[in-house]
């Protein structure tokens, strides 16, 4: 009975949440609290990044501890073109997508030769490498980062300099990636990835070239995260190596776990919950990490199915 009740609550929560997100700019304007629009845009962007990590972590057991690197690549693609006065989105965005896809493919090619704890550490090491590379880019701000004067120019009626438009673009992309992600996971390709998670030996014996499948999934996840980076740079009008810091990769993993691994929707809840928790704790105390750390430990120890798991078993 309990479970049936909670499962009945799922569509209410999902569609209610979506309606709330669509209505948000109007509500924020009514309440005259523009700050919250920025906060929620940030949540939506991190939801895209967390969703992309869940594609490989949740469905393929590829625990990438360097996923924030692609966030940084997407952001730097915007930042560096803007630095040279090129704001056209049709140049910036494809460059970000190609850049993050290429780097993810290269990183994946080396990392996927390993598994388990080696994989965790080598993805971390590659992310650190890119982090130090960004710090040494002195002409693009180095450690201090780079301010972006103008947001990407999409052309047509879409003007990203309006925060509301940027929000809707981010939300539309989140929904698009959620749709594509679910299609991908349910497809033959997704079946192979999931099969390789539960029994790699059998999948190899069946003749699937697992490295190629995993590499493709890894590159897709990196690319989606790169798009999140593009949005993040546009939101903050700023890029810095901090976007790639390893704690950022840790945050993305926390979002996935907190929301519910292997559900794609869960990480969206996770991203919203973690950023909200940070915002709340930091408004009460300067030492909010002192409380966030133990909360994370408690979540890992006791809430194993994540927030989305509260709404019944993940399909």
């Amino acid at each position, binding site marked *: 009975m309990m479970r049936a009740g909670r499962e009945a609550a799922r569509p209410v929560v999902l569609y209610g949440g979506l309606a709330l997100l669509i209505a948000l700019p109007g509500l924020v304007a009514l309440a005259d609290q523009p700050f919250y629009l920025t906060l929620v845009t940030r949540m939506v962007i991190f939801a895209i990044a967390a969703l992309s990590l869940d594609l490989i972590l949740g469905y393929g057991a590829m625990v990438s501890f360097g996923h924030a690197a692609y966030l940084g690549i997407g952001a730097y693609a915007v930042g560096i073109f803007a630095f040279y006065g090129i704001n056209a989105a049709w140049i910036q965005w494809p460059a970000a997508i190609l850049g993050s896809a290429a780097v993810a493919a290269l990183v994946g090619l080396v990392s996927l030769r390993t598994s388990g704890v*080696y994989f965790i550490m080598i993805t971390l090491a590659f992310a650190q490498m890119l982090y130090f590379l960004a710090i040494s880019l002195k002409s693009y701000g180095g450690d201090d980062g780079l301010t972006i004067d103008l947001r990407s120019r999409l052309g047509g009626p879409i003007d990203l300099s309006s925060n509301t438009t940027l929000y809707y673009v981010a939300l539309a992309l989140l929904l698009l990636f959620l749709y594509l992600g679910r299609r991908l996971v349910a497809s033959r390709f997704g079946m192979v990835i999931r099969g390789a998670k539960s029994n790699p030996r059998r999948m190899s014996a069946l003749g699937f070239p697992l490295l190629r499948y995993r590499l493709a999934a890894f590159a897709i996840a990196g690319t989606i995260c790169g798009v999140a980076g593009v949005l993040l740079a546009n939101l903050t009008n700023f890029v810095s190596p901090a976007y790639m810091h390893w704690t950022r990769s840790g945050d993305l993993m926390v979002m996935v776990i907190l929301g519910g691994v292997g559900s794609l929707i869960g990480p969206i809840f996770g991203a919203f919950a973690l950023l909200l928790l940070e915002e709340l704790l930091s408004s009460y105390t300067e030492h909010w990490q002192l409380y966030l750390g133990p909360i994370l430990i408690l979540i*890992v120890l006791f809430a194993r199915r994540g927030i989305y798991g509260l709404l019944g078993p993940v399909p």
Partner: protein
Amino acid sequence: MIDPQLLAFQALNGLQLGIMLFLMAAGLTLVFGIMNLINLAHGSLYMVGAYLAAWFQGCTGSFLLAALLAIPATLLVGVAVEIIVLRTLYEREHLDQVLATFGLILFFNEAVRVIWGPSALFVTPPDFLSGQVELPLGISYPSYRFAIIAVGLAVALFLYVLIARTRIGMLIRAGASNRAMVGALGIDVKLLYTAVFGLGAALAGVAGLMAGPILSVESGMGEPILILTFVVIVIGGIGSIRGAFLAAVLIGVIDTMGRSFLPGLLRAAFNPSIANAVGPALASMLIYVVMALVLAFRPQGLFPARGA
């Protein structure tokens, strides 16, 4: 082109960094090899060791006394962490371990700020180590850094004897190769795990307190060395103390030499503007490139564990 004295000096610096890395890597690799636990919070224990040493030195005025107090205190902090949090994680997936220990890092980094304030603390080396050692060929090297190398080598020897020659070491090796069997033979595995974790914490504390006089003692100081330590144990082969030692020295020397000589070498080969742009970036990425190469050709590391 390269001054031989500078070369020797930097080689010693590389060795000294390698020794510090070894102290960290030995504990981390033991904990991973025996308990199958990835402990990201190992860097936090290093930081706790450094803070405790700075604090005890402030109280007692003596570096040696502070060191003698800080090592067992760090060990106790490690044992407490093991009993309260980590014990329940041994049977969990690596993902859960990464997240829980990530939470521990946030906690410790903020806790030291709450207890000792936001500004960095400093540790002064004892007077008898404040001078320089004169080595052959006219090389002079700071005594304190020389002492780090000596202490590190002594600890390496101690670990070798402990693991290869004593009963506890035998249990550690047995635990690494077959945990269930050790338990079935009537050994208190829980106690063994706590002891191994405490040993690792004490080694991290030694590294932290020795780093005190070289670096500033501040919140977050554990993470850079933690990531270097990961590189070391991945290259050395997880679970292998011998591998950890060789890889630590290798990484220490490559990193130090790369940072001091690579930009100069590039300047000799390419035009200065390219060399100045690429040199520092390449130098800081060098060890990660080495790690990627090692993993690409030998995914199990250079010296995979054989018992210990």
